[in-house]
């Protein structure tokens, strides 16, 4: 196992070492100590490695991740896992706003709560939150799945496209063009798999599915109040 003290090594050298790992690297397990809320830790990774960050992280930890697994042993700052393409990010604590923003793929797991705009503009990422999520989550969500074992804040899924939202608890309010949907067997299957991948034992049947009403897909003057 490779261990890096971020305070000693510095951000640039740390990321450089992680970026230097090729697909067939044998240095597959890394630990970053003394994260101390630094920004852009382990962003832009593109190798099948596992990085554990000890402590809380600042903005954009794991940004644009490809292939790597990143474990954050603390809470995660704004924009964690933004534009994630593949791989997995697991946050032991809470996540700040814009979690997984515009993510195109991969999985993000939050064991605590996630703040506002969780999954904003998501484009294929799967996000599973054990606790609650904040307001305006999945705003303009295009595709992927957002699973919330707790409650969702105001305006869930505002102006969303084809992303799916599964909420076990209460939804304070739905955003424009977001509606409650029927939970069909294929949705139960997706949810079962995501909960298993996240390691949460919630029952899929307890969730409600939400998604786009598709009324704002083409501009109609009669919907002007919603724009």
């Amino acid at each position, binding site marked *: 196992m490779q261990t890096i003290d971020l305070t000693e090594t510095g951000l640039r050298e740390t990321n450089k070492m992680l970026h230097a790992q090729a697909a067939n690297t044998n240095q597959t397990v890394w630990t970053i100590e003394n994260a101390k809320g630094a920004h852009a830790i382990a962003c*832009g990774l*593109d190798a099948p490695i596992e990085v554990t960050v000890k402590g809380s992280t600042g903005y954009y930890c794991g*940004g644009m991740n490809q292939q790597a697994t990143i474990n954050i042993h603390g809470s995660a700052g704004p924009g964690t896992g*933004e534009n994630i393409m593949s791989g997995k990010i697991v946050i032991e604590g809470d996540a700040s706003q814009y979690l997984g*923003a515009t993510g*195109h793929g991969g999985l993000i797991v939050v064991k605590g709560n996630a703040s506002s705009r969780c999954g904003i503009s998501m*484009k294929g990422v799967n996000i599973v939150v054990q606790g609650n999520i904040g307001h305006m989550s999945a705003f303009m969500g*295009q595709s992927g799945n957002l699973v919330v074992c707790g409650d969702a804040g105001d305006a869930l899924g505002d102006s969303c496209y084809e992303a799916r939202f599964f909420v076990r608890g209460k939804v304070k309010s739905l955003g424009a063009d977001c509606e409650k949907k029927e939970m069909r067997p294929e949705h139960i299957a997706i949810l079962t798999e995501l909960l298993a991948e996240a390691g949460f034992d919630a029952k899929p049947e307890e969730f409600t599915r939400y998604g786009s009403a598709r009324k704002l897909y083409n501009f109609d*003057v009669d919907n002007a109040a919603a724009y």
Partner: protein
Amino acid sequence: MTNDRSKGIPRTTPRQSATFSQDVNSDIRRAAATGIYDIRGGGAKRKLPTFDDLLFMGASISRYPLEGYREKCDTSVTIGGLHAENPIHLDIPITIAGMSFGALSGPAKEALGRGASAAGTSTTTGDGGMTPEERGHSSKLVYQYLPSRYGMNPDDLRKADAIEIVVGQGAKPGGGGMLLGQKISDRVAAMRNLPKGIDQRSACRHPDWTGPDDLEIKILELREITGWKVPIYVKVAGARPYYDVTLAVKAGADAVVLDGMQGGTAATQDVFIEHVGQPTLAIIRPAVQALQDLGMHRKVQLILSGGIRSGADVAKAMALGADAVAIGTAALIALGDNDPKWEAEYNELGTTAGAYDDWHEGRDPAGITTQDPELMKRFDPIEGGRRLKNYLKVMTLEAQTIARACGKNHLHNLEPEDLVALTMEAAAMAKIPLAGTDWYPGKPGTGF
């Protein structure tokens, strides 16, 4: 009943209202018939103070000229040397502005790459990601990082020669993109992760940062992901140029792209294009002042865009302190957009060559702003690239002609003192003396 005519009283001539002009009345009738605002492409069409309101004085006894065609007048520019390991070296200071694949056809993007590369300059992606034909044909490609993040991925990011974080666009400061369903073909839809045929609204704000402090961290992240190799530009609309440039530099930008309201868009509300933003002439001096106040002029490059058409515009922009310019609309015209050879078809669309701006409808007779396979066939990317190269060469020669006449051996040596203003507005906006005087409105110590 008798009327005035039968009484022999002369009639006044029919008089059109300046307030309710035929243009205005047609807008009202269109609004009344449809219930929706007008959407169009292009930039501000209204008459604005422009670089045409400035003149170069040329050489005289106190300034001697350089021999045209003999003495060297350099046109090269390096962008992004402040923080980037690999700054961009351009042979000419005229770059191609960001325009999306989606708004433009694949072959049109290819032509922009071909023309720019042949002329020794860069081209720029747009809202919709990087296409292989664009990357393949552009020797220097700037990758736009937009609020929508359509098609955004780290592999393409690392293929870019520079990254341009788009905060605003001159045609619509504070507005996001718009691509209507007619242009969302299978390929466009797939690149943007959207269903085919829907009206696509791009976000107006970045999803994961707000404000200058966040921007600084966003720039840090992009540099970390790309190994501090490529320059990072920040593009802002001509909204509050002094503060926007100051904040962009503070956040760590290597270059600032500043886009005035004549700058085009693929599609947005006409009211937005015509009534939000500032003319290009008005935004350059505050931007340069900001760089000078920070001691960063010529260290952080300023790229000016919005209605640049000729070598004279290039020379004037550079005399006022820009390091380079960017062209969008002018490049499309060079490719063949709005060419009178398609007049009959423009007429069928209810318009005329030069006025066609319904680019969002995807029915461009010139085959440039469309995703229709039949219309796209009309456009030859090799010929288009050759035309763009020619146009860029002519602009460069024109700018050099002016610079030599002013005694400058590099376009960057042009200076505000080479200029006079023709109008009070231009004098005030550009802080250039009104021709025949040593005064401009607002000049310190003059009481005005």
